[in-house]
């Protein structure tokens, strides 16, 4: 009798635990949807007033007059992230090839932990570094060669800081992709008489191209949403930048900088939440696409 009761107790416990865990899992999956909906709900007021297109292409940002044009901020974001990718892509690609194809194990043992440390440094510390090193370097050393005057708080400063920040992500995904390539491919190429470099160029890089593209999109979306570090070095002037020495005002910085006054001006909070929604949707899409590509690659190569 007791034994039956004990077994029943075990069964019930199992059932309860199992279902509560399933419940949590399903809830957690709706999480992205909840974020999307609540941000959308908050940005409805401004979308009712103006069309999305006129908001995105509007050039003037005067919250007090009710003018909310996102164009300068979108351009600011594109400038900063685009240049950041331009700087860090060649660095990461070269270094990832070196580390996975050439480097001796002891070099990996030194470099990998450092990349980890780089990944762990908080954004605000990158910002501090930007203010201490990058901004003065640009304003006193670099800019005078090209333009008459730059404070140093510029697109370029933001891009350099961002470039360093996305290196760990990009390099580790790159190396993962190279390592996932079946070794047989390389051996086949080498046994046909190709040199190491020819193999890399014609086999490794070509074969891993989709993965590399996915990794770049991943890094791009990371750069897109980075806030504090960029905010600290970009200058934050709401105009479309004309050169890399002009200040820029990326979207995330706009949100972070104005949270204080947004409740006191009508529509302001709605406009800021709309920009958060934009960031969310774009980054969600970018991430989903690149993750799906990466998963497919993993599967194909595992065969």
């Amino acid at each position, binding site marked *: 009798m007791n034994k039956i009761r004990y077994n029943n107790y075990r069964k019930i416990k*199992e059932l309860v635990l*199992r279902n*509560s*865990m*399933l419940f*949590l*899992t399903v809830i*957690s*999956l709706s*999480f*992205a949807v909840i*974020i999307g909906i*609540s*941000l959308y*709900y*908050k940005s409805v007021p401004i979308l009712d007033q103006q069309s999305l297109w006129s908001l995105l292409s509007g050039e003037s940002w005067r919250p007090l007059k009710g003018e909310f044009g996102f164009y300068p901020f979108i351009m600011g974001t594109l400038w900063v992230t685009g240049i950041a990718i331009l700087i860090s892509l*060649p660095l*990461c690609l*070269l*270094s990832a*090839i*070196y*580390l996975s194809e050439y*480097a001796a194990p002891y070099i990996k043992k030194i*470099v990998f932990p*450092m990349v*980890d*440390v*780089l990944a*762990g*440094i*908080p*954004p*605000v*510390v*990158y*910002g*501090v*570094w930007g203010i*201490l*090193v990058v901004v003065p370097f640009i304003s006193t050393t670099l800019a005078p060669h090209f333009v008459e005057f730059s404070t140093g708080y510029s697109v370029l400063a933001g891009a350099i800081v961002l470039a360093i920040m996305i*290196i760990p992500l990009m*390099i580790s995904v790159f190396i993962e992709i190279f390592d996932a390539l079946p070794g047989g491919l390389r051996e086949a190429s080498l046994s046909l008489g190709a040199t190491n*470099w020819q193999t890399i160029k014609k086999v490794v890089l070509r074969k891993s191209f989709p993965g590399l593209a996915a990794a770049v999109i991943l890094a791009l979306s990371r750069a897109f*949403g*980075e*806030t*504090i570090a960029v905010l*600290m070095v970009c200058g934050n002037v709401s105009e479309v930048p004309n050169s890399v020495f002009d200040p820029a005002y990326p979207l*995330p910085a706009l*949100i*972070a900088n104005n*949270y204080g006054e947004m409740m006191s001006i009508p529509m302001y909070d709605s406009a800021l*939440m709309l920009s*958060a929604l934009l*960031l969310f949707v774009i*980054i*969600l899409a970018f*991430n*989903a696409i690149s993750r799906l590509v990466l998963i497919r690659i993993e599967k194909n190569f595992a065969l």
Partner: protein
Amino acid sequence: MEEKIFKALMMAATMIIVVSLFMIIVAVVKRGLPAMSWDMVSKIPGGGFYIGKEGGLLNAIIGSLYIVIGSITLGLSFSLPIVLYINLYLPEKSRLAQFTRLSFDVLFGIPSIVYGAFGFTLMVYLGLRSSLFAGILTVTFLIVPILIRSIDEVVRRVPKEMMDAALSLGATRSEIIKPILRQVAPGIITAIILSVGRGIGDAASVLFTAGYTDSIPTSLSQPVATLPLAIFFQLSSPIVEVQDRAYAAALILTFIVLVLSLAGRYYSRKFSKNKI
């Protein structure tokens, strides 16, 4: 020839990456060290702190610790059941498990400013003001994807035979949770260390939600100061003494993060030793 040129370029690229890490640390230490003093880590801001008078950063240090401890506790109580469910109950190729993994990978990429904005709308909706509680909640959103993805990595590697053995002896699935947790404990610790690092250093998520204060909060509904925000706010001050404190705070934060990353390395190495 071409190979040699490219190899040199590759080595140069690797050097640049390594050197930039050193540059960052050297710059922060060089500027932060002269500004450090015992007062910084042992005192809360006194009167006139923001015009350069006495006081320290204890409020921000303790505040950051509160936020991180709270959100790790909250985060673990969500992520452990989820990870265990997709690994214990679902078959290996289950759609639900794969979809869960994918969705947390994607959530991992969502920037903290979006979580901050979301936390803010949630706060307004619930009628809360910026407080320790709201900060903990937002940072929890931020770190749950990291916790889940990195704990999942280790739970996945637990040999299936171990589970099968326990199940064939008549254990229910929920009864093998405990031994599995014991098996992956070092991995969980590594995951915690990782997320502490992310949580403690993030400014954009707490900017909206945690507020800022000069005192140490005594309840969940009070605002709380955090280290990243201490850096961010004080750096924008025109007074040099106040800026100095921002650099001291940056040094403290960097130090914490470096120690965490070393500790994480140590534990994951210990873990991989156990595994073999």
